[in-house]
């Protein structure tokens, strides 16, 4: 008996330790970035653009603008496609249909799963070969966001599917039994009920765009000008961290930019958690 509870105490001790380690790692990484980065942040830092070539002077204004552009344009491409695909996969594919359609659904699922596993540098290569070079779009927000959309489409599809699946079947049956067709049911009942879940997915994807570096490294060009059209190149904040760290010696600026990035991610996580906890509060 004693031996059994000793084994339990030892094991649980180790598990507590791993849990604590995970938290400590987070605190250390985030804490380090914040401690090194926050002192360099002032109002100027947000309102001026990088300048001075190798000196790494200036703030991050234009990189914020570019990041924002990237989020908006990428989501504009990916959200309709991703949500549409998820609707098809959850709402339409269950119906008995021709063999062909069922084969197509299996194919589509395979596509989504594969896409979800493709590493971002491959999206970068692809974007570089297709959009930048073959389609002559050059280093531009358009090229980069098309490549970026490929990265987040699976994320949006997956989270949307989850959200759609958590809509009670009773809503659908209720609507169909009143003589609504599939699309009416989806548009009027299912999508509104899944809205919060879908926005979580979209926000999550926005986070991916904010964090992404490898893809934009080869498709966005890295100009630190404020972009003024879809064909302008640019530099996202994450990319700026990379340039600052690798090109200049302005590690302090790199840390400050990283701190802003991490702050943004924390904010997004907070929003997502509020949304999801509200969802579960409503359902529970």
């Amino acid at each position, binding site marked *: 008996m004693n031996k059994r509870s000793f*084994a*339990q105490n030892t*094991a*649980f001790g*180790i*598990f*507590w330790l*791993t*849990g604590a*380690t*995970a*938290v400590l*790692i*987070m605190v250390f*990484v985030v804490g*380090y970035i914040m401690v090194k980065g926050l002192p360099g942040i002032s109002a100027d830092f947000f309102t001026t653009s990088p300048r001075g070539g190798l000196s790494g002077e200036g703030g991050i204004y234009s990189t914020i603008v570019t990041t924002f552009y990237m989020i908006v344009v990428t989501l504009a491409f990916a959200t*309709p*496609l*991703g949500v*549409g*695909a998820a*609707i*098809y996969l959850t709402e*339409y*594919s269950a119906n008995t249909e021709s063999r062909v*359609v069922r084969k197509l659904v299996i194919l*589509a699922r*395979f*596509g*989504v799963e*594969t896409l979800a*596993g*493709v*590493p*971002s*540098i*491959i999206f*970068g*290569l*692809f974007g570089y*070969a*297709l959009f930048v070079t073959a389609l002559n779009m050059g280093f531009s927000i358009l090229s980069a966001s098309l490549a970026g959309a*490929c990265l987040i489409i699976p994320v949006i599809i997956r989270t949307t599917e989850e959200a759609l699946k958590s809509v009670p079947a009773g809503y659908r049956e209720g609507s169909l039994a009143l003589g609504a067709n*599939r*699309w009416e049911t989806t548009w009027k009942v299912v999508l509104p009920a899944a809205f919060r879940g879908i926005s979580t997915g979209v926000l999550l994807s926005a986070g991916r765009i904010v964090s992404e*570096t490898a893809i934009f490294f*080869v498709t966005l060009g890295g100009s630190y000008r404020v972009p003024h059209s879809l064909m302008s190149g640019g530099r996202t904040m*994450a*990319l700026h*961290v*990379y340039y600052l*760290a*690798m090109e200049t010696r302005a590690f302090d600026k790199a*840390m400050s930019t*990283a701190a802003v*990035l*991490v702050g943004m*991610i924390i904010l997004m*996580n907070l929003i997502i*958690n509020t949304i999801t906890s509200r969802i579960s509060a409503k359902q529970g």
Partner: protein
Amino acid sequence: MTPGIRRTGIEKTMKMVLMISALASVLIVLLIFLFTAKEAMPAFREIGIGKMLSDTTWRPGNNQFGILAMIAGSGLVTLGAVFIGVPLALGTAVFLSEIAPLWVAKIVRPSIELLAGIPSVVYGLFGMVVIVPWVRMIPAPGNTGYGLLSASIVLAVMVLPTIANISEFAVRSVPRGYKEGSMALGATKWETISRVIIPAAKPGIISAVVLGLGRALGETIAMIMVIGNSVILPTPVTSNPLSIFLSRARTLTGNIAVEISYATGVHESALFATGVILFILIMLVNSSARFLMRKGARS
């Protein structure tokens, strides 16, 4: 009836549109493969796949394009990350799902979510300024801090959330009945966890690890910032075989990112070929994870 016809029309159109969006992913995968493969063709033709895969020398200036060293680099850094990260991730997963009181879980889970959200370039930066100097303090000839160990540590932290989340899910989806059944027989909590819950969650846990592996293989930016990027087959730097991790290396992903800017001709094509090989490698890893997951779900 006009509204009826209009409604049917909308329904049919939307169905078409939605189906096309569902197939867009397939199209993208296809395009990605075709385009990378097309660009890679000259390299495969001129160098030969076999030669690329078996040759350790990468010297584009001299028309030598072996990527074995990079495959070894990717493999070793992933191995290191798994070695460091997996125990931590699994421990955290079991801790979160079975042991942690609610208030503790409320601290640990967001921490892990945050780790998942931190951009890889920030991990790279952190690795450069914190991990690399730490590793440099290990006394060994030629140890500069840049190398597999630093990269593995950084990567371990990066894959921790993936593995922890998926395996926590696997542990959580073990039916409550197993747990109650075991406890009702007079098992302690730990006996229940170790003898019933973990074995039942094993397929899920394994596929979590494999999925983490896929993630690790695909990581790029953080890797090039800390791994040293030398194209050598990693070898132990001292008599201790573990010192292989102090060796510098280059990953497949790093090879692409480091050289793509300046490459032309066959060199550029060889980088696309590296991409194709990476793509296939990761597809293999991920589909084995999927296979394991399905097998787990069936049993």
